[in-house]
């Protein structure tokens, strides 16, 4: 798992969801553990798109449930 991508995912998540950085661990679920509602998830995905200059199609958003999922998805896209 790329440290750089993980750190950037953490930074974006802390900013978007107003959570503490030490809560943003790879196993943390955005909705179950970090308090995101459905609108938060859309906003968060858009922030990832901006941060990493990628496009995340709606039908792939379902793959991103945890912080670790986000890092894996982004690593694949950015590769």
């Amino acid at each position, binding site marked *: 798992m790329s440290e750089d991508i993980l750190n950037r995912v953490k930074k974006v998540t802390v*900013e*978007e*969801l*107003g*959570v503490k950085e030490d809560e943003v661990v790879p196993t943390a679920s955005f909705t179950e553990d970090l308090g995101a509602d*459905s*609108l938060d998830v*859309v*906003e968060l995905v*858009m922030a990832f798109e901006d941060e990493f200059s990628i496009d995340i199609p709606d039908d792939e958003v379902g793959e991103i449930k945890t912080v670790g999922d986000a890092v894996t998805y982004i690593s694949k896209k950015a590769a």
Partner: protein
Amino acid sequence: MAHPPSGRVVVTGLGAVTPLGLSVEDTWQGIVAGRSGIDRITQIDPSPYTTQIAGEVKDFDATQWMDRKEARRVDRVIAFAVASAAQALKDSGLVFDEELRDETGVYIGSGVGGLWTMQEQTHNLYEKGANKVSPFYIPYMIPNMPGGMVSILNDLRGPNVAPVTACSTGANAIGDAYHVIKRGDATVMVAGGSEAAVNDLGIAGFCAARAMSQRNDEPQRASRPFDLARDGFVMGEGSGCLVLEDRDFALARGARIYGEVVGYGMSADATHITNPHPEGRGAAAAMRMALRNAGLTAEQVGYVNAHGTSTSVGDVHEVKALKAVMGEYATRVPVSSTKSMTGHTLGAAGAIEAIFCLLAMRDGVLPPTINVDDQDPECDIDCVPNVARKADLSVALSNSFGFGGHNVTLIMTK
């Protein structure tokens, strides 16, 4: 209804965020001192616009009033409302149980709603693309969300409506909330208005309507109601909220009472989208209705907080309406425009000015109209020029008139 209605409605809490301060007392000190809250606009680069001044709320920190996530992203108009409502609720000393939460409603309106959100997301749509519009665009732009958010953050579950009547919004919110309590549909109401339209869209729009002062080199002297050299209104921003409460309920809990809402009049000019009726017909009708349902005569009114926006026609029409309603007494009753100091806070104005009426009665002080150097002979009223004045006061009347021809008058007693 666990608390049977008395049919009378008192005010037990006040909250405000204005160009003169981040609280009711700071704002009121500014008003009594005759201080202007107007300055060159800082939130945007105002240089492209013919008007470059406004009454901005300074040093506002939304994180004082909500968690960091909400504070970072809610529209400024929502944050202002949350702040003023929280102040008013705290000031009321109310302690909520489950039953009272069900019996407490929120009527908070806004003239234009989340204009910052609209501006940013319109930019995103055109500059970044269709899929770059925030999911929070709609919820933060719609003008009922200030009241929605106040109910959510304070768990208040009674009637919740956002009046939208341009510059009469705040007054309609208070008057309508008064009726909700009076008829027994709620025991407590948080009522008021909020506005945050000092951005590119807001300034460009009102500049295009040729409604605002262009006295850019003298910001503090630009809002000058009833003065011959007035050249338009100056936009302000902020929020005012009142806690209204059934009188018996307030008395039973030993609440501190600022005053009672006793009259609420409404009318439409039915004339033009932005120009008032030339003889002030609608304004007079609203004042007459409020006096009638308050059971008061014009001569019993000790102070009028005028709509008085500092536009060339509006101020004259309001004076004509006052004369139509009050006759010769219109030239003797003190009538001031606090917009000379706050600027015109649009949908928040009616609520902020109702607060000034209540504090004028509490302290026995009439707020001045500042910048009256050469009073317009067509506005031959006692406008309390430039300096606040002591007066024993028990009945205050507040006017609010909005684009669309909406006229609202509130009457409050000590």
